[in-house]
């Protein structure tokens, strides 16, 4: 176990962690505003990947155009899902909305199965993201740099929006007290739609980079990253944007390091990751950066 090996694993862990973070931020934003665990979030990732795939491979669009269209359409789908499935349930018990979210998730997956089929498609990787830097034994793929850069950039952007803009203020206010904000004359639905646009675009970006790294597009590809991002969001403290980013990073690092350092445990990878999660939650019952629950 030399230093180069450990640094190499840190690079891989950070790359995986950044991908989790990208998805987790969107998860946590929606949760922060309407207190809904949006289980369909992972499936938006799948939709974005398919749109990107069809854009490039079937319609032969240049990749920036295809990715742009993919992000736009996924954001639109986010609004559509909110207006169609979640808005009617705004005043009902939270768990009813949760079941609707599971329903939307099943619907997207099975529509994918019926319309496109279950056979995986190969996602093309533009040449800009190919290749790597080599130092001695270390390999630093350009894609890892891109993922890190994009994640940091988008995280800063989201933090700026949440903390420096009027709509961000409205979002923060909504997460504190839904009713009062509505009474103050804020157009709640527009703020929520904006949240979904932001969250879904992040899922789309996450999905596109996920597929460039792991180029198999299939209807169930969003389930596991979605679940992991959910875990990351909870780990960081649900509703906290920087917490979600941190949670994703920790989860990615933990998953990679466990296998790299103790290969005999590779079969127990998820179990160890979840055990760490449970241990952290038991010492900090609202996640690493979560607000205290009202007693």
């Amino acid at each position, binding site marked *: 176990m030399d230093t180069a090996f450990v640094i190499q694993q840190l690079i891989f862990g950070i790359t995986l962690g950044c991908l989790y973070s990208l998805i987790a931020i969107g998860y946590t934003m929606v949760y922060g505003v309407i207190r809904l*665990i949006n289980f369909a979030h992972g499936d938006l990732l799948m939709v974005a990947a398919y749109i990107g795939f069809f854009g490039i491979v079937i319609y032969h669009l240049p990749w920036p155009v295809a990715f742009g269209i993919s992000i736009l359409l996924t954001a639109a789908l986010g609004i559509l899902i909110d207006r169609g*499935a979640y808005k*009617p*349930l705004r005043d*009902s*018990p939270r*768990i*009813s*909305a*949760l*079941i*609707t979210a*599971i*329903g*939307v998730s*099943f*619907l997207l997956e*099975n*529509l994918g*199965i*019926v319309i496109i089929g279950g056979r995986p498609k190969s996602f093309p990787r533009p040449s800009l993201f190919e290749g790597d830097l080599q130092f001695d034994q270390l390999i630093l793929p350009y894609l890892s740099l891109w993922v890190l850069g994009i994640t940091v950039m988008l995280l800063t952007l989201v933090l700026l929006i949440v903390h420096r803009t009027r709509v961000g203020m409205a979002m923060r206010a909504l997460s504190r007290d839904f009713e009062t904000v509505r009474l103050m004359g804020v157009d709640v639905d527009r703020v929520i739609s904006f949240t979904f646009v932001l969250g879904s675009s992040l899922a789309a970006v996450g999905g596109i980079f996920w597929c460039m790294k792991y180029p198999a597009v299939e209807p169930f590809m969003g389930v596991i990253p979605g*679940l992991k991002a*959910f*875990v990351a969001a*909870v780990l960081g403290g*649900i509703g906290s944007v920087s917490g979600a980013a941190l949670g994703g990073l920790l989860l990615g690092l933990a998953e990679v390091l466990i296998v790299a350092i103790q290969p005999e445990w590779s*079969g*127990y*990878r*998820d*179990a160890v990751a*979840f*055990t760490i*999660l*449970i241990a952290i*939650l*038991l010492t900090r*019952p*609202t*996640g690493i950066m979560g607000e205290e*629950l009202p*007693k």
Partner: protein
Amino acid sequence: MTRDRILTAAAVGILLAFLWFADRTFSAYSIRILNTIAIFSIVAVTYNLINGVTGQFSLGPNAFIAIGSYTSALLTLSPQEKAASFIIDPIVWPLSVISVSFPVSLIAAGVLAGLIAFLISVPVFRVRGDYLAIVTLGFGEVMQVITNNAVSITNGPLGLKGLYPHTTLWWSWGLCIFTIICTVRLVNSSYGRAMKAVREDETAAEAMGIDAFWTKTLAFTFSAFFAGVAGGLLAHLITTISPSLFTFFLTFNLLIIIVVGGLGSTTGALIGAVLFAWGGEALRVVEEPFTLFGYDLPGIPGMRMVIFSAILILTMIFARSGIMGRREFSWQAAIDLGSTLLQRIRRT
């Protein structure tokens, strides 16, 4: 009160008569669906106790069903069958030689699941709300990984096979009725009222002298016990089990059952279980070839799940608190409903 008791006894009698009739005349396919309904009902009714009545968002029933299934299956399998199916690593002693009767194995399944629930409730109930959900989900995932990895106990992903189909209508429905009686009695007891108090306002409940932790632990353990028993029944219905049966999708399905039925309502959990288990099979029709306006159309494989998801979303939009809400079935309400219907018919 006496009237209600008589009516309940009559209803159980009718159900038993129906089961006797079904057992003799129904096809194996219908009997299998009836068994599945009973097993899902057992889990749903008790899962509803922790999620609906006590208001603790647990996502771990798949773990307890898994514990119950494996315990029961490992105990009833014959030593020869175990020796034959453990082809990767031989099974550990004493499991390799033990073979007990089905009822004993069911009790063991329930007790072990309940015991584990009791033991983990100390750490688990330190967290609340969505954090509780993720901790229990994590527990389910850890169980899943362990069943895959502990090859000399669980046979890993190969699973256990060759179980004798002990689960008959009498076993599944008998235990289902028993579970419902136990649950209803618990909910209507002082413990049940304490559970509801914890759901509504934990702080207030504690101020009134209710020990919230013990109340939650009681509900959790009770629910795990029956989930374990149901796991044993399930194993002996499909005669083979493996870790892939107990993923978080199983929990999602149970959650769907209790929320669609009406969270907090035992009647609702039953309705949800019946709709889920029977509806899943009934919906197969949409995948069969059909004739529309004289055209023969081929069936579309996979349509069933699309329609299932769409129905799920629509149900939640139109019945926001589920079918029953928090209401329960009562004979008085049924009689009232019947008489209003009769009056309306008379008027027209």
